[in-house]
């Protein structure tokens, strides 16, 4: 009988622990991880509307909208994974969206992980709010699911109306899912060194130029508009998964 009781206790304790996974115990000393993103094109800061850019195929374009989701952001070290259940909509037209912070237990971390997009569970869970509010114009009303990354602009090489270029990249299920887990291993021995009550700041660049090539060569002239889930959306996501780089880490 004692054995069964012990088993039950274990079961329930683990249930309780699982249910509380997201919460950091109030007794744990924590610091802040702040991530600051700079959207760029070929290494230069992205300028919406007026910036004139040329891709590696010689096609000229500008960018009027550039936004994408990051979720499941965490810094990790064995055995800690500071899973962060928040969703961030990075929007080049909204400077406040270009940096965000979360708490992590005091430790030195050598890895940063995130998902580019909104995890599949949230795509099938009904009405959401905050960064996931459909008001943010990143939700398809005709084929439920989030647009994980969006670029709009114009290019003289685009054959469609008003020379538009529109990439609304989404699709969370099946072989054409565009969801990408991405992670950095930090080689600097200082790592992300979180100290109690202090901030560790991670600076990342996200370079739009990666959308055109890397895995697939995608010309504006051939594919000026991608606004449905499918092979093309998947191909663009295969390219853009490598748009991020860490440029600096500052431990305060």
């Amino acid at each position, binding site marked *: 009988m004692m054995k069964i009781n012990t088993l039950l206790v274990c079961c*329930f304790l683990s249930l*309780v622990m699982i249910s*509380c996974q997201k919460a950091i115990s109030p007794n744990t000393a924590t610091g802040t991880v702040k991530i600051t993103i700079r959207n760029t094109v070929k290494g230069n800061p992205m300028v919406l509307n007026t910036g004139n850019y040329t891709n590696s195929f010689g096609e000229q374009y500008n960018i009027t909208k550039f936004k994408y989701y990051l979720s499941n952001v965490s810094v990790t070290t064995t055995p800690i994974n500071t899973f962060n259940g928040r969703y961030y909509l990075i929007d080049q037209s909204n400077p406040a969206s270009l940096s965000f912070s979360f708490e992590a237990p005091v430790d030195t971390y050598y890895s940063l992980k995130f998902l580019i997009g909104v995890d599949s569970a949230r795509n*099938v869970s*009904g*009405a959401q*709010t905050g960064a996931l509010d459909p*008001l943010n114009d990143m939700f398809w*009303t005709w084929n439920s699911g989030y647009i994980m990354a969006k670029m709009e602009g114009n290019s003289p090489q685009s054959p469609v109306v008003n020379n538009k270029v529109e990439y609304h990249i989404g699709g969370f299920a099946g072989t054409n899912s565009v969801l990408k887990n991405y992670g950095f291993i930090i080689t600097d021995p200082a790592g992300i060194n979180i100290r109690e009550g202090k901030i560790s700041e991670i600076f990342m660049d996200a370079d739009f130029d990666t959308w055109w090539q890397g895995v697939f060569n995608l010309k504006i002239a051939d594919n000026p508009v991608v606004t449905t889930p499918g092979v093309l959306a998947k191909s663009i996501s295969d390219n853009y998964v490598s748009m991020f780089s860490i440029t600096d880490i500052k431990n305060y």
Partner: protein
Amino acid sequence: MKTRVIIFFGLLVLIAAIFISACKKNDVQPGEPHNPTYIDLTIPAGWPTPTSDIFANNKLTEEGFQLGKKLFYDGKLSKDGNFPCASCHQQFAAFATFDHDFSHGFDNSFTTRNAPGLFNLAWMTKMHWDGGINHIEVQPLAPITAQNEMAETIDNVLNKLRADTEYPALFKSAFGNTDINSQRMLKALAQFMGSIISSNSKYDKVQRGEASFTATEQNGYDLFKAKCETCHKEPLFTDNSFRNTGLAVNPFLNDFGRMRITNDKNDSLKFKVPSLRNVMLTFPYAHDGRFYSIGAAIDHYRTGIITTQPTLDPLLVNRIAITNTQKNDLIYFLNTLTDTTMTKAARFAQ
């Protein structure tokens, strides 16, 4: 000994429940008492458990239901005020559009598919003829923003609701404070629509032993079970699957159904199997309303199916053999699926 184990087990459940609830974020702001009237969705006896628990993260309350009903009937959700949800989903037509192949939308436009009836949505896994909508809460975003339906932006709708004299108080009683956002509006609409259950037709009364079929109706029911039941599965009268029933493509619409959602050519021309409950009220039939009478719809299965379409449902490759007498019996049976309790219920009326 057994009692002690039970007590011990119970205590553990209690402790776990306290811990789990302690970890949940509370939406209601402190200091504001919020005591809505919780209600349960009554599952008709003998029905399957709903496939998706649409109220799992949207606790059904009387206040939420009433707010959802007001929203459902309110033209403010459309651009020019003329197109509430109820303009295409009429209660007397089992919440379909009565006698219309396509419904009317903003600026004298037509929809591109036949409006389905709205009932028993808790058992529906996907919305739209092509299954593109995966949750009842996000369904209203499609008609509200479609240019040929309500033609409005969500932002404008919310601003109209915020400026209204009644809505802030109704949102407060449903959700604890006067904040009006898209999530709350959509959850309230889901509470209303998800509560519409059709389970009191003559068929249902026969199943419960409260009535009996006439001989003709019984013949029709027997035929139904032999020839229609696989797709139009009882008691919901749909198996929620997507199938190609061998309809010619309408050249004005070029609607290939589910393929648009899945990008899979195997899904070409597949549409959702509609429930046959209230079928006599939801005419015309098929995704584009091409069959104006139930007889014409049955005739399609007898003689009209285009058997050369590669994605045609395997069950229909030989069409369905139904004699004229059987067709007549079948129509008598289908008449027993009309549920006037639902279509006249004051609870669902404006």
